[in-house]
């Protein structure tokens, strides 16, 4: 028997009863099922036991993806997890993108946690729906539920081989009480058929045909288009503007001044002058004719060149100790030799391929938005606050994101659209141009770090001092925040995995002068750059092999005990019992990547390799970059290697893609920079904000995913942090030029021949 589409419940029950021998004599009383996981009221035409799954009586299964799709194929991997337990046939699976609503739990697509934080609940959601379908079949057949299995969109009675399609069970299943989680028997790992399989993206047809819809692509009836000239310096506002002249230009519907925010910046729009017109081009053209006088701002003195000096000086001065074991000062006194180096990394812009965009319709008491947001719930909150509406009356529809990388977790652009749609009383799309994106972002912070290693006679590292100094993301939310936050130091600094007797980690003060925000891997990017470059420096100065030294410094297999060094470690919000800092796993990715790259033979083969390894987002990544440098010093990357241990992975094909893309994003982080003069960002588009193009990226990437049954770790971010130090170390091997400051130029001076 196969699924068939029923036209009415009665006809369908009748058919069910006759064709599959159902007994419908039982009185099934619908029960109310209040629960946080529970969506809307059940109906007999669909079974919706959780916010994630709906089974319809025509057999269609709707799976709701509550996380934003920005290239990681979460819209494929979430269904993979649910389908595993539900036993659905992909032919009948439809993916629905969730709007922003707290009923889904956390939706902030950020921090590499979509799978790790949802894996169990998604499995349970699939298993719950499966349980109800099985229970319905068991009731109908008057058999024991434990003899009923889900398989290929049917419930099968194992002893007799009878089967019935999902659709036909919906009416009965939707009247049954929800099972307790304890009643659910999740499938054993060895029986997985969907989790762990390299399934193609469900969106790939749309993406290769040009029909996929992103934030910039939203079209509504009667829509107009806005381009905004924002203040060049954060917190400055409009003093005067020639709006009357600009209003007369072709296609211009209105010129609207938006108020400058007061500190803290949070997710507030920056203010400025919006030009609303009949199409993007007219708005853009007219905005060029704007002549705005901007008010003063305390940030007007910001100059990234002088600020760099200040940061480096702070990094070299004693800082506030945040983790300590042993006695570094004594180790230094007793040292045979001391190695010291400073590292600097500039601001970066996330620069997703799709600049931010949002489209809004606002009426008296409601707002509906379509936008490429990583965090639809925050968008809903800020729009509700800005329009003075109840959040329940604000709908945030999440489009595909043309990349996010942290930029689209700040919904300032969504509020802009809402305010303008309200003013225009018609739908408005706010189009951010690339210049807007690069100049008015929430920038990856600028950082300076000082590292000192002390060595004994045998060249063993006896002491390690690391001072990290940067303006904190916290400053965006709290203007008083003037030093690296614990949360940021937890990203690759506090969790130092080295077995060094005398360890001292510090932070220093730094004030922010631009909006600071998350960028893929966040503080791990610069912490890994400094630490993994410094290890290579020590290897070089002591004549050791870097792999050997790294393994040696990491020391014996163990779980790092932070209590021993009086440190608290946040561990990405997850318990260390489930996700320890496991040195064996870190060493394993190093050994794996070295083996793949034939590391030990590199000198003989005349290849220049750079190695780096870093744990972040509860996963372990090691990277080797191979460079070729021509006579002019211009470098290329014939090959790169990544080993990733992310615990249990749902879709190895897309994990591979994240390893490739994450590594390449890390190369971009190594070669780009955002600078400021007089408080204004100097860069504006891809001609002066360098991002990796094909010639700066590996011709091929060999990815090794470590087989693991550990709980899922992050995937989207961990491959990024080791990229910059691996590249810098490879360039050192090839040229003898130690690159302690980012950006790395595309042409590197040779120090050795």
């Amino acid at each position, binding site marked *: 028997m196969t699924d068939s589409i029923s036209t009415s419940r009665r006809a369908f029950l009748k058919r069910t009863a006759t064709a599959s021998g159902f007994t419908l004599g039982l009185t099934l009383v619908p029960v109310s099922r209040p629960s946080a996981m529970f969506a809307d009221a059940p109906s007999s035409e669909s079974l919706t036991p959780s916010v994630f799954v709906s089974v319809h009586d025509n057999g269609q299964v709707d799976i709701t993806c509550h996380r934003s*799709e920005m290239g990681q194929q979460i819209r494929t991997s979430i269904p993979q997890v649910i389908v595993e337990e539900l036993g659905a046939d992909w032919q009948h699976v439809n993916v629905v993108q969730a709007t922003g609503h707290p009923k889904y739990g956390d939706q902030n697509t950020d921090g590499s946690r979509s799978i790790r934080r949802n894996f169990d609940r998604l499995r349970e959601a699939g298993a719950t729906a499966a349980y109800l379908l099985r229970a319905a079949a068991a009731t109908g057949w008057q058999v024991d539920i434990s003899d009923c299995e889900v398989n290929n969109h049917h419930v099968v009675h194992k002893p007799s081989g009878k089967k019935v399609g999902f659709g036909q069970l919906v009416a009965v299943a939707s009247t049954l009480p929800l099972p307790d989680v304890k009643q659910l028997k999740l499938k054993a790992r060895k029986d997985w058929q969907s989790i762990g399989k390299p399934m193609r993206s469900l969106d790939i047809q749309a993406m290769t045909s040009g029909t996929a819809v992103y934030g910039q692509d939203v079209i509504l009836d009667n829509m107009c288009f806005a381009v905004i000239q924002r203040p060049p310096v954060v917190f400055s506002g409009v003093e005067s503007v020639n709006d009357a002249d600009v209003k007369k230009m072709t296609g211009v519907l209105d010129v609207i001044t938006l108020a400058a925010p007061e500190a803290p910046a949070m997710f507030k729009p920056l203010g400025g002058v919006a030009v609303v017109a009949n199409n993007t081009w007219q708005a853009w053209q007219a905005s060029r004719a704007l002549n705005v006088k901007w008010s003063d701002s305390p940030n007007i003195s910001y100059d990234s060149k002088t600020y760099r000096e200040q940061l480096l000086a702070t990094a070299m001065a004693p800082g506030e100790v945040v983790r300590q074991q042993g006695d570094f000062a004594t180790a230094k006194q007793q040292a045979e030799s001391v190695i010291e180096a400073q590292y600097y990394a500039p601001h970066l812009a996330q*620069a997703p*391929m799709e600049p931010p965009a949002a489209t809004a319709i606002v009426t008296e008491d409601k707002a509906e938005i379509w936008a490429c947001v990583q965090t639809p719930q925050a968008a809903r909150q800020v729009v509700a606050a800005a329009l003075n509406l109840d959040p329940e009356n604000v709908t945030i529809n999440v489009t595909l994101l043309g990349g996010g990388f942290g930029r689209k977790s700040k919904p300032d652009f969504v509020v802009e659209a809402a305010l303008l749609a309200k003013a225009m009383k018609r739908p408005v799309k706010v189009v951010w141009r690339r210049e807007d994106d690069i100049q008015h972002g929430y920038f990856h912070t600028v950082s300076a770090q000082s590292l000192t290693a002390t060595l004994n006679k045998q060249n063993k590292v006896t002491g390690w001092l690391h001072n990290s100094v940067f303006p904190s993301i916290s400053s965006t939310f709290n203007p008083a925040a003037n030093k690296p936050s614990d949360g940021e130091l937890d990203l690759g600094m506090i969790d130092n995995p080295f077995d060094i007797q005398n360890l001292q980690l510090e932070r220093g003060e730094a004030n922010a002068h631009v909006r600071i925000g998350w960028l893929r891997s966040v503080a791990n990017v610069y912490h890994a750059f400094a630490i993994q470059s410094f290890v290579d420096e020590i290897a070089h100065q002591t004549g050791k092999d870097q792999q050997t030294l790294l393994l040696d410094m990491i020391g014996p297999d163990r779980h790092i005990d932070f209590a021993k060094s009086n440190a608290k470690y946040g561990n990405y919000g997850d318990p260390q019992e489930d996700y320890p800092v496991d040195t064996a796993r870190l060493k394993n990715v190093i050994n794996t990547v070295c083996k793949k790259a034939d590391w030990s033979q590199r000198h003989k083969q005349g290849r220049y390799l750079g190695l780096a390894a870093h744990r972040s987002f509860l996963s372990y990544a090691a990277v080797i970059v191979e460079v070729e440098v021509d006579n002019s010093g211009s470098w290329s990357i014939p090959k790169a290697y990544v080993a990733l241990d992310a615990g249990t992975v749902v879709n190895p094909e897309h994990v591979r893609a994240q390893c*490739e893309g994450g590594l390449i994003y890390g190369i971009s982080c190594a070669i780009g920079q955002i600078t400021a003069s007089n408080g204004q960002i100097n860069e504006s588009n891809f001609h002066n904000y360098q991002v990796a*193009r094909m010639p700066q990226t590996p011709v091929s990437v060999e990815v090794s995913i470590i087989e693991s049954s550990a709980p899922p770790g992050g995937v989207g971010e961990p491959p990024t942090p080791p990229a910059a130090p691996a590249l810098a170390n490879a360039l050192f091997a090839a040229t003898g030029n130690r690159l302690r400051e980012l950006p790395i130029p595309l042409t590197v001076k040779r120090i050795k021949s």
Partner: protein
Amino acid sequence: MKVTINQKTFDYDGDPAMPLLWFIRDDLKMTGTKFSCGMALCGACTVHIDGEPTRSCQLPMSAVQGKEVTTIEGLSKDASHPVQEAWREHNVPQCGYCQSGQMMQAAALLSKNADPSDQDIESYMSGNICRCGTYPRIRAAIKTAAGKV
């Protein structure tokens, strides 16, 4: 003036300086051609003008008078161009936003060069940015599609 896009002819009497990109996206509401830099720096907006890959964000309407424009929507019926098929075979897209432009550029490359070397691919594709870093797969997919265009 008249412009032919995917074999359909359209009348246009707006600002002759408006880039073709906005005519395609805002007026025709065909959003497969993407906007990313607006300065001919990234290739997201690539279309074919009489078969030549061109950045539509910097091409004024006055320059397309009487020309044949092909966008991603017109590259093939049912997304069946060998480049589109190879893109799926290699799971190239991540966010997908740059990929219309990448595929238009790659299709043009293969129409001229049936067997491009790594170096040919690199120099022809270096104007197309992919922030998701799908370059290694783009290279592989171009090789798969080579000879089939």
